[in-house]
């Protein structure tokens, strides 16, 4: 899936063309798609010399559900910002679906961001727009027709369970509800990649499970989901790939648990059961 519709040579897949041609010649089959996220020695240095990320190399395959964990200030949020090109790496390669995004012209950056859904820790909702308008904005941005907007928006709001608050303003919603709006806005375009920066950061455990359940459901539609969190409990329960960062360095990358097909309902039930078990344990 092409991430941008760049006509110029900027932003074209790099290095994949030759490899893909050779692969097709050898096997007679179309080449496998490049990983949705590929980092090669990516280093981010903030003005003032602070190194936020240091030589990070990792791949995230399509359809994966992965966590990025680490203490505050380890570079988790910078990683997200780097993937939507809010910050640019000082060196190294950042590829999304095979495209070097730092080779992208500034005018093409919005196109990149439209193909990546982003859920922000502070929600980043537009304060003077209703739930409906906030979600619809993501569709208006890509030039969706009004009839499509009128069809898709209520649908996605129903998916995140906010149909009763569709005409409320963000300040009339709880944190969990605002996070759901944020997720709805990120997912309404059905992007191939969804990034979530501390989606459960400010929420109680019960609500967190609801949000995770929602992200899991989105993942099951084929969307790659990358969740940044410091909530180790949640990560342990989810049993998915975990990427650990510490002081800007990659310290852990492991696939935990099995990738068996679990329905959203089973998934939620398992999480809840684990949490109840913890609560009933004395002194914990």
């Amino acid at each position, binding site marked *: 899936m092409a991430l941008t519709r760049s006509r110029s040579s900027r932003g074209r897949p790099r290095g994949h063309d030759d490899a893909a041609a050779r692969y097709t010649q050898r096997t007679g089959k179309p080449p496998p798609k490049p990983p949705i996220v590929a980092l090669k020695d990516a280093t981010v240095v903030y003005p003032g010399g602070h190194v936020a990320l240091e030589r990070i190399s990792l791949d995230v395959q399509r359809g994966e559900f992965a966590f990025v964990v680490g203490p505050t200030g380890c570079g988790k949020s910078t990683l997200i910002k780097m993937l*939507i090109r*809010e910050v640019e790496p000082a060196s190294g390669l950042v590829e999304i679906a095979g495209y070097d995004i730092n080779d992208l012209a500034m*005018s093409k950056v*919005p*196109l*990149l*961001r*439209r*193909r990546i859904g*982003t859920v*922000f820790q502070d929600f*980043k*909702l*537009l*304060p*003077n727009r209703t739930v409906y308008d906030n979600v619809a*904005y*993501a569709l*208006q*941005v*890509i*030039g969706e*027709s*009004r009839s499509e907007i009128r069809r898709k928006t209520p649908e996605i709001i129903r998916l995140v369970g906010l149909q009763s608050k569709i005409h409320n303003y963000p300040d009339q919603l709880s944190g969990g509800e605002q996070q759901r709006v944020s997720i709805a*806005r990120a997912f309404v375009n059905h992007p191939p990649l969804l990034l979530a920066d501390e989606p459960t950061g400010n929420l109680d455990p019960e609500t967190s499970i609801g949000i995770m359940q929602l992200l899991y459901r989105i993942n099951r539609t084929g969307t790659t989901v990358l969740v940044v969190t410091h909530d180790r409990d949640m990560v342990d329960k989810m049993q998915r790939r975990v990427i650990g960062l510490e002081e800007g360095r990659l310290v852990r990358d492991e696939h935990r648990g099995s990738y068996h097909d679990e329905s959203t309902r089973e998934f939620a039930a398992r999480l809840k059961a684990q949490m109840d078990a913890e609560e009933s344990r004395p002194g914990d």
Partner: protein
Amino acid sequence: MGRVVFFISEAFRALRRSAAPSIAAIVTIVVTTLLLGVLVPVLKASEDKAQDVRDQIGLNVYLYDDATPAEIEALGKELAAIQHVTGVEFISKGEAVGILQGRVKGDLAQSIDELKSNPLPASFALDLDDPANLNTVSSAISTVGPSGEPKPISPIIEEVKDARQDASKITRVTGAVKIVLIVLAVLLLVASLMLVGNTIRLSIYARRREVEVMRLVGATNWFIRWPFIIEGVIVGLAGAVVAVAILWLGKVTVVDPLSQNFELVDSFSTMGFLPLVIILVASATAVSALGSGITLRRFLRV
């Protein structure tokens, strides 16, 4: 088409939501447009007046009384052939008295009638293409002889006179007035631009987070910018319309009654109200829209 509707509705939404800064911007535009609306006609009027005076300046060639009609006719042709002369009018002794009688009234007019003979000379009134050529033309008619006395091109010429000294005085005064007014107008324009820019910047600064969010969900710069520009157009239009209404009120209640009684004021309203309105509305709208669009730039670098 759907986009245009969306942008306009976005602009109105923003105006509704941030009423106070919008009103501040409108008031700023009203005040500066009003000042410009007064200054521009004054500038235009003084410029026109100066032009008027300059247009009236010509040369008068006075003739001896004993000139024969044939000589006069020959001189007329000769004068008309001189470069920069655009018109030659012969004023006979009789016509000269008529003109004088037209200018003076009462006892003085009567005393002209009582004169037994006509003391006024016949003359040629010359129109020039440009008052700057006065010297050239007058020296072409009357060269200065070696001993210093004037040596006219024809023996019937008694004297060549021009209103140069008056003219240069008038030109100097109107020139100074013009410079003062232009400096004032430019200062006012700069001040109003900065004031409008600042007001717009404040209202955009209040919404910079919103702009940031729009950037992060993949809105292109122009997608974000258009509603702001339309908002600027609406604010500029509203301010200009209010200012024009006040100007019109002032024209109807103050300037028009005055101009009926005083010729001086009448001569000042040389500028049509409609072109003035068009200029004011267009410039207020343009400044406001450009101000919005340009100020937004610094918030679009996310």
